[in-house]
């Protein structure tokens, strides 16, 4: 290909893909030029990931064509995409923790029928690429020992190792801290200058504004707009992305009461390091305390401790003055502590049980006589939850797996809120939900706050945290910053907090 040729390096034309009743992609057409950084913007469920899987050959499209350098790719064959120079960095890394960086990079790059591998050559090539693109990494390190940012570098090197000219990144910053993310985009821009073409998928407006040359907006499987980044603004993109002005409920000012849950110097170790390292916070009646931070900084362990699943090794944790550092989940429920787990599928519900069974799972003993479950009473209770919390598409006997994410979350929230808890842990309560469901969950949380519950909200969604919480603390490497009032939180300050930069001056 002649340098400076005008034709696009990558074209998608009329791509459609249907999963059952869901039309994930509907006639999507877009193109990527050489040396360009293109952002594909859309909400969760807009069809971005499906589109990328089609482009890379993981799925075959029902209709439409993918062309690289003007040549059509055969559908459903990742190998063809790789051979044509397309490299993909998945949102969930496709790496093996037990193998080395080298092994993770060279996998599949040589014929399976070859006897012996050219290890030294491979190492040299990886080191060259690392230097050229500013992606330092030790080829002999075990991937399981690397940080998340380093793992992403391995993913990118994997694509470059195969001579990728087009790099596709699916939500590349989902697991990165702000500074790491900024560094990543600097590297990507450098690559584009060097002649690579880059397509990244995101739902974060600031990233798209900061890093892309052009942006394509996807909504409900369709391309709804295409803009040159320099000629648009976040407000316009937000409206294009959501398609309607969805009003999330607003927090009403009201005075908080006495502290309900107080943690002082909580410490939990994990695999040599500290998952929680001297954590202090207090949550007061009628207030929401927001814990913000990039995922993997100790949120999960904090959630486990407050759910009664993990025990701190040091420090104190009290609930209304009683020590709850060693409580079990059952005791937590009995004391009036509500818990919304981080992962609805892994911890929230048993998908193969009926809705009514999940509704009473936490308080089975209350719905039992002589060891036998009082089914009638349990079903009545489930019926009441369904009505009160507007859980749609379900009766008490429906298999819980059949519920949508939002309705599943309402079920979990409902079984916690129905008893009027004094304290509620809400760990990533809206992750993966659509805007409508998010608004409903927020409404419930604010309602509980108004009724005097103390709520600890752990969230990676800054808009959510700032919108709901009265006070905010950032979690970084198992340490908590001092709290700041939500009114005092601006993007710069939060960014610094989440990067671990907090001085004593910020306290209170």
């Amino acid at each position: 290909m002649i340098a400076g040729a005008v034709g696009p390096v990558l074209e998608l034309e009329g791509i459609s893909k249907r999963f059952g009743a869901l039309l994930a992609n509907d006639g999507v057409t877009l193109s990527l030029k050489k040396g360009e950084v293109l952002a594909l913007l859309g909400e969760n469920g807009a069809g971005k990931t499906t589109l990328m899987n089609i482009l890379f050959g993981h799925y075959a499209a029902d209709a439409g064509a993918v062309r690289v350098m003007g040549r059509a790719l055969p559908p459903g064959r990742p190998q063809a995409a790789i051979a044509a120079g397309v490299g993909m960095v998945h949102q969930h890394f496709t790496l093996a923790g037990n193998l080395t960086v080298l092994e993770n990079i060279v996998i599949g790059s040589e014929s399976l029928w070859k006897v012996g591998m050219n290890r030294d050559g491979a190492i040299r090539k990886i080191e060259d690429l690392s230097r050229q693109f500013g992606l330092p990494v030790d080829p002999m390190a075990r991937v399981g020992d690397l940080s998340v940012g380093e793992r992403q570098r391995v993913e990118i090197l994997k694509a470059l190792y195969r001579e990728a000219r087009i790099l596709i990144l699916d939500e590349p910053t989902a697991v990165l801290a702000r500074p790491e993310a900024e560094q990543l985009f600097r590297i990507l821009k450098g690559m584009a200058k060097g002649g690579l073409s880059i397509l990244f998928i995101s739902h974060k407006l600031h990233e798209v504004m900061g890093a892309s040359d052009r942006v394509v907006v996807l909504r409900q499987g369709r391309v709804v707009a295409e803009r040159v980044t320099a000629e648009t603004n976040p407000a316009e993109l937000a409206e294009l992305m959501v398609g309607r002005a969805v009003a999330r409920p607003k927090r009403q000012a009201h005075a908080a009461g006495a502290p309900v849950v107080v943690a002082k110097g909580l410490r939990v170790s994990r695999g040599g390091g500290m998952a929680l390292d001297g954590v202090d916070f207090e949550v007061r009646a009628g207030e929401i305390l927001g814990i913000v931070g990039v995922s993997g900084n100790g949120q999960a362990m904090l959630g486990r401790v407050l759910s009664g699943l993990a025990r701190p090794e040091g420090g104190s944790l009290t609930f209304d003055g009683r020590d709850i550092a060693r409580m079990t989940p059952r005791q937590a429920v009995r004391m009036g502590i509500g818990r919304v787990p981080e992962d609805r599928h892994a911890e929230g519900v048993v998908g193969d049980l009926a809705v009514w069974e999940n509704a009473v799972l936490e308080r089975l003993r209350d719905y039992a006589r002589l060891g036998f479950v009082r089914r009638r009473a349990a079903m009545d209770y489930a019926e009441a939850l369904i009505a009160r919390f507007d859980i749609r598409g379900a009766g008490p006997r429906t298999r819980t797996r059949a519920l949508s994410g939002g309705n599943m979350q309402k079920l979990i929230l409902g079984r916690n809120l129905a008893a009027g808890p004094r304290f509620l842990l809400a760990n990533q309560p809206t992750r993966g939900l659509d805007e409508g469901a998010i608004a409903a969950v927020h409404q419930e949380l604010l309602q509980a706050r108004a009724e005097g519950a103390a709520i600890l909200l752990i969230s990676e969604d800054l808009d959510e945290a700032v919108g709901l919480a009265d006070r905010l603390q950032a979690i970084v490497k198992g340490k908590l910053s001092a709290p700041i009032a939500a009114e005092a939180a601006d993007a710069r300050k939060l960014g610094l907090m989440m990067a671990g930069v907090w001085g004593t001056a910020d306290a209170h």
Partner: protein
Amino acid sequence: MTVALDILMTASLWEAVLRIATPLIFGVLGALICERAGVLNLGIEGIMTLGAMVGWLTVYWGGDLWLGMAVAVLVGMMMGWLHAMLTVPLGLSQHVSGLGITLLASALAYYLYRLWVEVGDLPPTIVPFQPLAVPGLSSIPFLGEAVFTQMPPTYVALILVVLVAWFLNRTPAGLALRMTGENPHAVEAQGLNPHRIRIWAVMVGSGLMALGGAFLTTAAFNSFFPTMVQGRGWICIALVVFASWRPGKALIGALLFALFDAFQLRLQTVVEGVPYQLFLMAPYVLSIVALVLVARRARVPEALMQPYRRGER
């Protein structure tokens, strides 16, 4: 104490160790290959039984000893194919499918043996493999008798350990196989087919298991009788964990195990008053103890027993 030392100092003990270890080496390598690709193969006990039967039968019907080994491998691969079909593309429970394969393969072995072989008072016999002295090396004192005067398949087993280790760690196909057992998504992302890799791994591994069984009837003994595998397959599954999925350690595990077994056999004849059942129990108890010792430290292939379905996480 001196009794124990005397036993350890005899070359015939060490000759026996290698002989007893041989079927275990084949079996443990086979199980290891399956598991490194992410498939637990509990069909091993039955596949060894069937391998023992068909290997023996081939020779009984006039075939060459090596032809018997080849037929065993082929039949083992067929059983492996069945297990792979059920557990890989269909993604069925590897536990239950494996047990089903064990029941099926051993039942087939017994059925066909009864059908095709006239059994009198004693089971019919064949002329088994004879020890092969390696020229030169076998005249080394002690070592020569202990190591270099073995049945030919034993040498094959030892060479296979090196070969499998080399294949897994030094070839692109071996890397692809290991990656399939760690993260099949990564394999798919590179345009390789994780299902195909798993199917082949299970077939090859099952072939080796059958070879281990065939050794029993064509070298260690000279006839086939039901229940002759005696849990060796299950012991191999335990040895794979003990060896943390590494061929070299698997060899060491098999040798240690065989040493223990050979030792207790000799001890039985010397020590009186202890019921022989206690000696026979020891290998099984030892396997369980070994599992407990390594269980926490074991670096299990991450995708072991995880069925892979395209586009599912």
